[in-house]
């Protein structure tokens, strides 16, 4: 059996594509590890259009529910990660981490991205021992502690807000000379009395024996190395596209993103489309991912029906 389309991913892009593909009655399979995408860990999303405020968990639930509403018109393999895509006669063969296989005429890659690590000494050794990745999950452990959030983008600012009810002092360690998150969130964060932003600070090492005791950073202007005593570190330094299973088939840019045609979402290889954070799209946003994925799936539909 050969699918017409396999959609890879269960974030906003994958679900949008799934809903459209099902309604078009394309013979489609959606493969996803879980539903919701990277916003899953957000305490409150205030820019998901049509909803004033929603938690990441609720967004994930809603997306899954919307997709499953069409489940008689789309196959869904959840709890599965695609590990390989091969070119076969007339299409592609996909293999998952559970060794399930599917053949398909076309593929839409919506695999999103994952968290970037700092890549400094101490990071692996102290992971979970005061160095944390999920502020909404683990903030309560940092009650009455001094905490550093590394990264001044939206995710870093959100981590500060998650920590606010618990930590008694928060530092933002930002590598450039300004914060990058949305102004509305910046205002909220900068108004906090127990917050200090350290600009032009390049993190060099996470310090601690059995538990985080501080960080060492370099002042990018003076070159001076400094140590800051903290009892916890949250890392929010951007993301890396999930391309391992597809990187030998399609063109990838210098940032590890799949190069796509902005009019159609086509990749460099005929039969493969991509949308959302895994691509070289200019802005990584839930709302943009949804639109791009829909553009992609409609273009797949045209492609299949012109043949």
């Amino acid at each position: 059996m050969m699918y017409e389309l396999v959609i890879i991913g269960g974030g906003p892009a994958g679900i949008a594509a799934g809903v459209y593909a099902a309604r078009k009655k394309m013979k489609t399979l959606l493969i996803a590890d879980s539903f919701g995408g990277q916003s899953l860990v957000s305490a409150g999303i205030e820019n998901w259009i049509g909803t004033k405020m929603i938690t990441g968990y609720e967004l994930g639930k809603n997306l899954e529910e919307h997709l499953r509403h069409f489940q008689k018109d789309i196959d869904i393999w959840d709890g599965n990660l695609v590990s390989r895509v091969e070119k076969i006669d007339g299409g592609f063969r996909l293999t998952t981490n559970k060794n399930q296989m599917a053949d398909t005429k076309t593929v839409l890659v919506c695999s999103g991205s994952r968290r970037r690590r700092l890549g400094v000494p101490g990071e692996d050794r102290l992971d979970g021992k005061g160095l944390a990745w999920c502020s909404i999950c683990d903030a309560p452990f940092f009650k009455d502690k001094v905490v550093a959030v590394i990264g001044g983008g939206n995710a870093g600012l959100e981590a500060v807000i998650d920590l606010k009810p618990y930590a008694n002092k928060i530092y933002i360690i930002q590598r450039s000379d300004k914060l990058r998150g949305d102004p509305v969130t910046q205002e909220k964060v900068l108004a906090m009395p127990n917050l200090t932003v350290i600009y032009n600070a390049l993190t060099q090492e996470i310090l601690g024996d059995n538990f985080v005791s501080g960080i060492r950073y370099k002042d990018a202007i003076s070159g001076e190395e400094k140590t800051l005593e903290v009892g916890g570190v949250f890392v929010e330094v951007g993301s890396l596209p999930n391309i391992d299973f597809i990187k030998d088939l399609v063109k990838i840019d210098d940032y590890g993103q799949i190069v796509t045609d902005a009019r159609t979402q086509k990749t460099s290889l005929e039969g493969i489309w991509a949308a959302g954070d895994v691509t070289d799209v200019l802005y990584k946003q839930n709302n943009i991912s949804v639109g791009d994925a829909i553009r992609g799936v409609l273009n797949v539909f045209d492609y299949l029906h012109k043949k």
Partner: protein
Amino acid sequence: MKKVVIYTTPTCVYCKMTKDYFDKNGVTYEEHNVQEDLRARQEMVDKSHQLGVPVIEIDGEIFVGFDRSSLAKALGIQ
């Protein structure tokens, strides 16, 4: 039936996902909220040697985070 214990915080998304997974597969479990229960928090740290939730204990075996495939293996879920 295996004894399953989960250590959680109320806001933790991966804790909710783990509990959803247990519910869907008919797994009964004992839950400890380590934001409130400091004794359970200490117990969790002693067992897992780290500070991150969820921590899941299945018949004495410790799992950190929601890793569906290792939980499935430990619980014999297909």
